[in-house]
């Protein structure tokens, strides 16, 4: 039970971190930032921006890390739903989740949806998906051996 709460908290933390990066470093006219500005006060956002005003944030952190954090949260939540057990149905849902994330990036390459395809984003998405899946696989292996 404690582990499940920890996974939920970690997922929320990943989601919030990704959103925080958007709020601090991305244009305010993005739908997500408009929503954040509605939920939180302009003063709070300004305070957060002032904390990072003298910090040079690298491009990968601004544009790619949120993708990885959101994919990490998505993968964690899907694994949580399936009790971190890897069977035929859970693997199918994991694949659907990962393909959804990858598809959003790849469709940008063909200008079928807005945005710019960036292979770095794609790499970050795969890393975000790979971390919880590999932990889950290691967990299954250790259970089998013990």
């Amino acid at each position: 039970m404690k582990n499940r709460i920890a996974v939920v908290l970690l997922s929320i933390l990943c989601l919030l971190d990704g959103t925080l990066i958007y709020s601090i470093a991305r244009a305010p006219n993005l739908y997500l930032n408009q929503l954040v500005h509605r939920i939180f006060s302009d003063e709070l956002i300004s305070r957060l921006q002032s904390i990072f005003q003298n910090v040079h944030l690298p491009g990968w952190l601004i544009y790619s890390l949120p993708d990885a954090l959101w994919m990490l949260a998505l993968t964690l939540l899907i694994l949580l739903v399936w009790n971190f057990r890897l069977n035929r149905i859970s693997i199918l849902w994991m694949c659907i989740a990962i393909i959804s994330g990858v598809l959003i990036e790849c469709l940008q390459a063909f200008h079928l949806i807005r945005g710019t395809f960036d292979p770095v984003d794609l790499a970050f998405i795969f890393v975000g998906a790979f971390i919880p899946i590999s932990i889950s696989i290691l967990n299954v292996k250790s259970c089998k051996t013990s």
Partner: protein
Amino acid sequence: MQNIMKSILSFVIIGLFLLAAMASFGPDDSTNTTVAISNCQSKPHVDGAILVKIHYTDKMGTPIPNITGSIFLTEQKVNPDTTCTFTSLTYSADVATDAFGDFISSGYNYSFDNSEDLWRVEVNMPQTAFYTACKEVKVFKYGGDNIITFNCVVKRLNEL
């Protein structure tokens, strides 16, 4: 039965994440660098230079000097075929307002021969110790005004 409930929950979670991904797009049809285009039409060739002007004031209209930041420019050129796809090049430059709160860029040469050839210009002036940030995006298309002016009206932090 349990598997059906878990599948429904998985579907809902993925759906919510896709919605969140869509929310990271903007109402100006652009994201970090490019602008969505459609209905591409060939046009007579035109050349010229675009200028980016920034006028930085507080809400009382007082010019604010010595504000530094960046401009990000994307040149989108429609490919010479019928698919309405494009090639893009990006540029950036550091900017600083002068004593009158103004900044004028050097000219960026453009060459248009399609209705959807365009330049996207984003101004990013971070928050300072006294004033809020200014982040705006404008798009210069075929037939548009080649002087892209940003009027940044910012607030004093102590007035928030």
